[in-house]
């Protein structure tokens, strides 16, 4: 273990990076292996209702007699893949639009960026709620709603990076060798701007999960009996005396968000030569 760690770059050997990595990987394992790991069926209502955490059911049971540990484990299968898909789609849509806005400029760029400004002008949660409510309460619509509010930040960052990269000599040089604008954007510009955008995406995983769970919490996302963490926290609010009903899914959200934020910070440090050097000097 120590040997593996010593081979990693300095930024990835920091305590927060290790904690983030371990927690994120653990949650991914739970998500993949939930049917094998969960002690009970997450939907079966055959346990005592609102039983406090104990040896038979470590996280207790909810008001319908379902095992909360099993539901939290199965919840990882709902929330984590959807969040990752959501961030990937936002990155793709925002990245492509931002890159086009930055590279081609003129009215294409202006149009795209004014649309992004329009989205930015609304408070994120409220806009997501409006979109989710308009589309109808379902997990798919909640994902679409978050997508609508999440892409502009990628568009803005990518546009800024592309604007800077477009004027670089090797990009001009590529154009002067006779390559088309699309090829120049794809081969010369985009690979050189992906680092910072990926950092943003990693940091955004936590935000997207919070927003998605928030919509489910408000009843605009996952529907019962689906074991979704936000919806589970909402169910716990009704039975406040039974603290375990809301606390464990809440902790699940907290740990995933923290883990991905730590990973995002680490990735940023690793990709930024200045911080990477500072970390190295501190370590020495």
């Amino acid at each position, binding site marked *: 273990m120590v040997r593996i760690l010593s081979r990693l770059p300095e930024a990835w050997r920091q305590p927060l990076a290790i904690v983030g990595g371990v927690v994120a990987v653990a949650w991914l394992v739970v998500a993949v292996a939930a049917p094998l790991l969960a002690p009970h069926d997450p939907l079966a209502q055959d346990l005592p209702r609102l039983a406090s955490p104990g040896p038979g059911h470590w996280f207790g049971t909810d008001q319908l007699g379902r095992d909360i540990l099993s539901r939290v484990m199965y919840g990882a299968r709902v929330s984590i893949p959807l969040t990752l898909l959501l961030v990937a789609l936002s990155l793709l849509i925002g990245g492509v639009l931002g890159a086009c806005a930055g590279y081609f400029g003129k009215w294409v760029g202006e149009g795209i960026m004014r649309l992004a400004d329009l989205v930015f002008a609304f408070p994120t949660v409220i806009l997501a709620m409006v979109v989710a409510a308009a589309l109808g309460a379902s997990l798919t619509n909640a994902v679409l709603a978050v997508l609508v509010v999440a892409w502009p930040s990628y568009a803005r960052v990518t546009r800024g990076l592309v604007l800077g990269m477009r004027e670089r000599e*090797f990009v001009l040089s590529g*154009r002067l*060798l006779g390559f088309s604008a699309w090829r120049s954007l794809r081969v010369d510009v985009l690979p050189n701007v992906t680092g910072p955008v990926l950092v943003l995406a990693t940091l955004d995983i936590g935000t997207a999960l919070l927003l998605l769970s928030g919509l489910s919490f408000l009843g605009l996302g996952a529907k019962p009996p689906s074991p979704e963490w936000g919806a589970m926290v909402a169910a716990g609010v009704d039975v406040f005396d039974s603290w375990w009903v809301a606390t464990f899914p809440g902790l699940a959200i907290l740990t995933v968000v923290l883990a991905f934020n730590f990973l995002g910070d680490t990735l940023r440090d690793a990709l930024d030569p200045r911080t990477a050097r500072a970390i190295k000097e501190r370590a020495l």
Partner: protein
Amino acid sequence: MSGPVAPVLSVEDLTVSIGEHDILRGVGIDLRPGRVHGLAGESGSGKTMTGLATLGLLPHGARTTGRVLLDGRDLLDLSQRDLNKVRGREISMVFQDPATSLHPMLSIGRQLTEHMRHHLRIGKAESRARAIELLGQVRIPGPAAAFERYPHQFSGGMRQRIAIAIALACGPKVLIADEPTTALDVTVQAGVLRLIRGLCDDLGLAVLLVTHDLGVMSAVADEVSVMKDGLVVETGPRSHVLREPDHPYTRALLDALPRQGPAARPGEILDPPPAAGVDTLPREGS
């Protein structure tokens, strides 16, 4: 000197303006095969813009008038698609700083072969063989190994040679070299200049050498044009322009050169010349 050869590229009355501001105000230059045409002038005089405008690469909102004739075709009239066929294939450009003009994430081999395959429609093996030959031609040691390497693994002078090899890969008729030696130290400069002069002589290339360095100009150029505020104020054979300049601005430029001794007079930098011919240049690495 034999009679003038027909120009391969003629820039006639080229004007470029952005908004109300005129960047070029009627530039005229003729480039002939096997000749180096030097374009001198201070920063902001429009030298680089002349090179870029020739190839149709201008900032957004720039308006161009005049003619850029390549073998009778006016490049300013060409569609983007047709212009892409001319760029890299018939006219190539080399930039000032080899540290930034090569793609940092692509291997030298890919950068050398991609446009060759695109323009010449040749296969992978053939383009690779030609690329290795080109690397040898620009005197990169171990061309086959260099083919696999990345730009950061080379020194500045070698990178500029590689940039020249990339520019020459498709056998263009015209090479525009935009301050190709400014970012290099003096001994490396000499090697790159000798290479450009040699390629010009051997391949019959027409070279537009953009530089603010009159020493460089005197070393390799056959004809010299002097630019000021977007206009060519004087043009002619090197010996005439640099020894007996007609225009006061050219005289001022020559006067601005550092003197070697207290007795030096304007224009004396050329006599005895610091580099009256390429042969007098020190060898790279010496």
